[in-house]
């Protein structure tokens, strides 16, 4: 299920940060610091996704995108330029997404997850301990027995399984699962979490993190 991602970013510290975030998400990555080498790396076809900075030495991100040719590798632009014309330009060129710096690690992972799923690079079947999730069919089984989940409970479960061992704030959950960008209504999150715990017997592994949110842990608490 892990994907190989090319990070094109000239600022060393940002590149290291992205690499660390990708590692948490279970992705492998390679860093490339300028536009010219990025073009040849993308051409090699070894990558499932490209994170492409726009302000690059030698060739800028848009030029890299244009010269990468017909390769179907999805590209997410990363840039400090948050203005609308650039955003539109990037998306119109055929980029999967556009992330404005600065960004949080979880947001980056969520966007990558969406982009990969959209291009079918992501496995359709997810597993967590004794739970199997069929993302296409919207079916969940616990020890082989089907469990009935509401659509929001299902999305929430998928989001947790994709971000194992990462603490997720209620705000992040609201914005990624419900699509709200404001931070009210956090009670909704709490009730859905309780439903998930009850239906799938996650009392020990879907833990509450004080003053932060929730985390789905890879092993039952030590």
């Amino acid at each position, binding site marked *: 299920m892990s994907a190989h991602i090319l990070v094109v970013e000239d600022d060393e510290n940002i590149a*290291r940060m992205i690499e660390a975030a990708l590692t948490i998400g279970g992705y492998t990555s390679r860093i490339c610091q300028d536009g010219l080498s990025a073009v040849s790396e993308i051409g090699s076809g070894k990558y499932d996704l490209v994170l492409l900075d726009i302000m690059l030495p030698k060739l800028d991100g848009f030029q890299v995108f244009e010269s990468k040719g017909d390769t179907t590798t999805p590209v997410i632009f990363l840039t400090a330029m948050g203005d609308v014309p650039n955003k539109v330009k990037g998306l119109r060129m055929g980029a999967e997404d556009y992330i404005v710096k600065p960004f949080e690690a979880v947001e980056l992972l969520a966007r990558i997850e969406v982009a990969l799923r959209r291009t079918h690079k992501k496995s359709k079947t997810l597993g967590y301990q004794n739970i199997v999730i069929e993302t296409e069919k919207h079916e969940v089984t616990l020890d082989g027995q089907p469990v009935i989940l509401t659509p929001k409970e299902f999305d929430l479960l998928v989001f947790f399984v994709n971000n194992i061992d990462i603490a997720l704030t209620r705000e992040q959950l609201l914005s990624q699962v419900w699509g709200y960008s404001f931070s009210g209504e956090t009670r909704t999150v709490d009730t859905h979490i309780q439903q998930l715990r009850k239906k799938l017997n996650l009392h020990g592994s879907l833990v509450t993190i004080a003053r932060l949110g929730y985390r789905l842990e890879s092993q039952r608490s030590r």
Partner: protein
Amino acid sequence: MKLWQKIFLLTLTLVIIVVNASSLALLTNNHHLAIEREQQNALARHNYLDLELRSSIIFTQLMERKMHLTEDDTQRVASSVLERQQDDPSMRISLYQVFPTGQQSAEGDIVYLRLPVLIMSVNQGSNASTTNLLYEPDFSSVIEEVGGMTYLYIVSTVLLSDQHFRLITSFDISTTYELFRVDFNQVRFIGVISALIVSGMLLLLVRGLLSPLRNLSGTTRLIASGDLEKRAKVKGNDEVAAVARSLNTMADSIESNVKSLEELAESRRVFISNLAHEMKTPLTSILGFADILRVKRDVSDEERVEYASVIVSETKRLQELSGKLMELLFVGNLQTTPTTVEVHEFASELASVLKPIVTSHSLDLVIELPDEPLYIKIDKELMKSFVFNLVNNSIKASSPGDVIRFIIEPTNLSIQASLDNAGEDLEARGDTATNTPLVDQTFVGQMEFVKITVVDEGIGIPADEIPLIVEPFYMLDKARTRKHGGAGLGLALCAEIAQAHNSELVIKSVQGRGTAVSVLLSREEGDG
């Protein structure tokens, strides 16, 4: 009320008054002359009648060989004379016998002994109230209006055979008055017509003369509403043209001011957008690593140290950026406090700071100073920052083993005095013919300067980028600059500092050979 309305109404009123008054005066004068003529005419006929009366009496006296005629005879002769006048209806006659006392009343009226007796009246018709005229002095003419008719009366005393008679003749002069009335009405009518014509012409004339003014106000409104490239048409040499010219001059200066403001705003905008970018880069690392530290379940000690040190170093970068920004703001906004400084002292203060930094990068610092003492007037802290920033740039450009030289030297320049002023003079004189030759305006002489230079043997600057490198946030090599914690503000700061000292940066560079950046400061007389 608008100007054209004022001019129009005032002129029209004036014209009407003058025309009517003068025609009325002329008319009245003519009328008086006509009446005078009538009077003379009447007087002549009156006198003729008078003469005829007297000659008839004398004739009768001669015929009848009497020295004295009786009262009845006299009245009979007179009556017969007057009767002959009946054929001429234009003259009406009354003859009274009077008995004067030879005295006059206090008012000047004649006083009679007893009431006058009407002897005869001819053509008098219904109105015979002429008795009041008996008391008028001789040969006075009286004009009276009776029943819509105007009459002229002539009165005289006639002595006929030692008897006093009063002869009153009257003439109808109604036509003269009628004529005057007709003329008067005609003048009024013509006056109204001519006033209409004059007002029409005046309207066209005033509007025509004021139309440039209207155009001017239209242009002014356009300029005011933001069409700054609009100019008024200057036609002729009148007052309006003068106003148009001044308006154009004003518009020129407004346009250039607005342009320079727009340029300023644009450079501010670029500055802020660059600043935002420069801030976002370290913020991305900081936020990213901080978030990872927050959300990751198991963070090894090794990872924690790595992430935290990136956060610290990026935070320092932000700190440096904000420090540089404050410095830029300080140089740009605050008055410098210049003091007279001796260059050897200045250099030694700097050397103690610069030496360790330069040597820590495996570079050599060489300081070259003049033999004799030199004085310059500078803001010491700013100038230190200036040299420090230049040396810092040189360090970034150099590779280990290179030499950085910090040079202070006196230099003489033949200068065309106050180049800026000369330029302004040229502009100011622009269109007016130059009477004085240009040479008189420029003063050629020697000026003594002190030149401060930092020279390195680093990578140099491509020739086409030299004008750009003083722009804030401009970086020759982003990765290289970033590695040294720079934000591209150093040279911008140096340029500001040079400007604060009324000078500017001189940058000379050969790619691959090195760069020399210098500033010229005016030399001061030492105070001892």
